């Protein structure tokens, strides 16, 4: 009985009505949290003694970089689930998630480059952290390209799932590149085991922005999955009813 909710989520129809209820509140909560975190970080957090005000880029850079990796982890897990159990919702999730992850990785790269200029004196270095995030961006683009280039839906689903699972190897490389290898990039801001090295008035707004961005992305991915569900299930009678009867 406890697993009923999980099996229900695997049904496109049930998922659609469930996400119809949750997408907007989750998205709005995300926007609110993100706005609070960013304003707090930009205007109220104290200046960094070493980096001055350029450190304020952290409040967007760290959340998007975390999301870029989390989105990929979710993508990889969904792909694995699809390859093993052929779950119908998995390719829908992959299709919805990949563009979001790509945008997150791109923002992480650009904001990181802009932060690098005043801090390291260079926009870009080919070190482990930066290069592995660039690879992450290309993985997302590869998944998007594969899914849209192949007309055969079955083949497209499978190809995208295989490349996402293989790409999972990149995640530990990103994570440990700043700990194990020689790099310009600073160490992780948040770890599960230790208190952050910054004072709370610096990391609290960051935490707020991170939670906000997770929620923002969750809302977006639900909406994108809805579009994909409607398109793939257009032969079902419930889709017809939904599209014809409800305005939005």
């Amino acid at each position, binding site marked *: 009985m406890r697993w009923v909710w999980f099996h229900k989520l695997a049904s496109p129809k049930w998922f659609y009505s469930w996400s119809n209820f949750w997408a907007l509140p989750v998205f709005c909560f995300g926007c609110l949290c993100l706005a609070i975190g960013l304003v707090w970080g930009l205007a109220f957090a104290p200046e960094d003694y070493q980096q001055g005000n*350029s450190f304020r880029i952290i409040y967007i850079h760290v959340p*998007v970089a975390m999301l870029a990796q989390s989105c990929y982890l979710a993508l990889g897990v969904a792909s694995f689930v699809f390859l093993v159990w052929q779950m119908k919702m998995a390719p829908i999730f992959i299709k919805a998630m990949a563009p979001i992850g790509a945008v997150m990785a791109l923002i992480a790269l650009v904001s990181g480059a802009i*932060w690098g200029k005043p801090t390291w004196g260079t926009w870009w270095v080919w070190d482990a952290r930066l290069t592995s995030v660039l690879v992450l961006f290309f993985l997302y683009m590869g998944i998007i390209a594969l899914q849209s280039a192949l007309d055969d839906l079955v083949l497209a689903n499978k190809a995208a799932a295989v490349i996402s699972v293989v790409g999972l190897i990149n995640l530990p490389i990103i994570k440990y590149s700043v700990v194990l290898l020689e790099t310009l990039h600073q160490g992780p801001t948040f770890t599960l085991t230790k208190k952050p090295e910054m004072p709370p008035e610096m990391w609290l707004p960051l935490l707020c922005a991170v939670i906000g961005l997770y929620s923002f992305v969750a809302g*977006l991915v639900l909406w994108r999955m809805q579009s994909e569900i*409607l*398109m793939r299930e*257009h032969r079902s009678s419930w889709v*017809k009813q939904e599209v014809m009867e409800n305005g*939005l």
Partner: protein
Amino acid sequence: MAFDSLSAFLMMGKHGVYVWSAYGFSALALIWLVWNTLSTRQKTRNILRKRFVRSQTR
């Protein structure tokens, strides 16, 4: 407030250009993502609605 005035806030010490360009790019990208998501949603519905209407009248 970590700044004395609005102009100090906008200048960000000597880092205003960097901070605001990073945030500007991020805002544009996030807004594009939201726009793309919602317009895809609307477009999907329009395409399907047209298709259903056509199949009904035929």
